[in-house]
């Protein structure tokens, strides 16, 4: 039935296949190397930051507790306390969440559930474009619009303040929250909507009692991702924060979050001062790590 193959043909086929197998192996290795590259980079960055940042505490006898809870940061007098910055970072992030999450969530609900297809096709790309704007431009926008606005409206001496940071961060986290939450809401099966509406429940009732709870884990992911964006943002924050080294007691206080501290001083710092900036990086890194851990927990819960 089958066409008989001569010995010569078999050898030829074998040769051709050998080349294929070789190529297969080589490309597998190549892909592996690429994949390892990001892991290696991550480890290098962590190692470097921790090596530099841990040095003053391990070898130079500085107290880590004093570093975290100290409220004075005067490098020239050998005082390194980052408590005001930690507080500023946390307040700025929480504030941005309080403003950004409801707006982002409502936008996502509007796009996924209420808006006509035509309207959604205009708003959705606009929101996604917001994500592509370089962060320094957000800072410039904040400096040119939000800061003067705050100055004039509240009669502040200086418009650069915690509230300015919060507003800029809230805008910056919007695209992340909207996009991820919208995807989660759209993924809720149509049958849930029909089931609820067929019971004589209004559209808004259906959204808040059935659809949002069903998309809960996706929405939580959206919030945590937005939070990550806010806590790590540097460039835009420098321009509108004011950068004063005080523990903020009001929204109109000038603040210096962790990220800006590193960016502002790394350029000229050396010795212990420089190492302390790396230590600031460790603290920031820990925040992000905790966030990622929370995120992983949430998404694994969503899977069940």
């Amino acid at each position, binding site marked *: 039935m089958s066409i008989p193959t001569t010995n010569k043909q078999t050898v030829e086929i074998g040769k051709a296949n050998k080349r294929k197998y070789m190529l297969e192996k080589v490309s597998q290795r190549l892909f592996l190397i690429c994949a390892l590259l990001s892991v290696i980079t991550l480890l290098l960055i962590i190692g470097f930051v921790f090596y530099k940042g841990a040095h003053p505490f391990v070898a130079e006898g500085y107290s880590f507790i004093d570093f975290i809870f100290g409220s004075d940061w005067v490098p020239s007098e050998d005082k390194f306390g980052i408590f005001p910055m930690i507080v500023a970072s946390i307040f700025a992030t929480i504030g941005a969440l309080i403003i950004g999450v409801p707006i982002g969530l409502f936008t996502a609900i509007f796009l996924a559930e209420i808006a006509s297809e035509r309207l959604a096709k205009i708003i959705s790309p606009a929101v996604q474009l917001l994500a592509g704007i370089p962060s320094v431009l957000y800072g410039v926008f904040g400096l040119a619009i939000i800061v003067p606005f705050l100055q004039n409206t509240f009669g502040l001496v200086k418009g650069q303040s915690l509230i300015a940071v919060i507003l800029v961060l809230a805008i910056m986290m919007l695209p992340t929250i909207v996009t991820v939450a919208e995807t989660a809401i759209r993924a809720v099966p149509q049958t849930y909507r029909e089931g609820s509406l*067929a*019971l004589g429940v209004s559209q808004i*009732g259906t959204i808040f009692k059935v659809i949002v709870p069903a998309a809960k884990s996706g929405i939580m992911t959206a919030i945590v991702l937005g939070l990550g964006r806010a806590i790590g943002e540097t460039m835009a924050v420098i321009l509108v924060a004011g950068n004063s080294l005080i523990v903020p007691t009001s929204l109109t206080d000038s603040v210096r979050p962790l990220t800006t501290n590193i960016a502002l001083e790394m350029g000229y710092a050396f010795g212990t001062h420089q190492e302390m900036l790396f230590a600031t990086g460790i603290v920031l890194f820990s925040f992000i790590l905790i966030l990622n851990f929370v995120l992983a927990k949430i998404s694994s819960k969503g899977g069940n």
Partner: protein
Amino acid sequence: MEQSKEATIINVRDLNLFYGEKQALFGVDLAIQEKEVTALIGPSGCGKSTFLRTLNRMNDLIDGVKITGEIVIDHEDIYKSNDVIKLRTKVGMVFQKPNLFPMSIYDNVAYGPKMQGIKNKKELNLIVEESLRSAAIWDEVKDRLKTSALGLSGGQQQRVCIARAIAMKPDIILMDEPTSALDPISTLKIEELITNMKEDYTIVIVTHNMQQAARISDKTAFFLNGEVVEYDDTDNIFSTPQDQRTEDYVTGRFG
């Protein structure tokens, strides 16, 4: 005539439905009797599900649907009145695939009444128990009311869906091929349930399964290409159909 003794609860007159340019229903006239089971049969794409969904205005969810003609339920033209919420509490629906929410069994059944504003715990408990009993599922789930409804078998889920519809105390229950996703034993249970339910409810059921229509319905409407070809007592439809197309369909010559 026996016909005149029965009370018409749904009266459909000259109903046309368009999906954009495409017409899906052509001049449908149908009078559905109270506390009977009416079956809608016909081949796929004949408009029977579309027609069912006009009765509680579920087609409103689809963009570009246009409807002419009238559907009178309880002396009210449902497309003239704009109270869709009231209509849907009166006309419940059970879907092709069980579509319970990802909540507990209790919360699924209590959902409708709760959203209608019933807050009293005792009252809700009573509604949940009564509804589950009416749907012949109470004994199977009474010990696990607080567990997720999605852990039940497909047949059980579908009966909880029926309980969820009953909890709203509707007059009419629409069923869109409620057994097509179920095994024969679950199907049998639901058919028994439907037969018992017609004491209290008017049921309109779309089915692919002609034996099912013959077993459980009092009246049958045969749909073909968006028109009602024949509408009569189920016995007549299956024994002495008037139209050649009906005869061809019920004897299995096409569809």
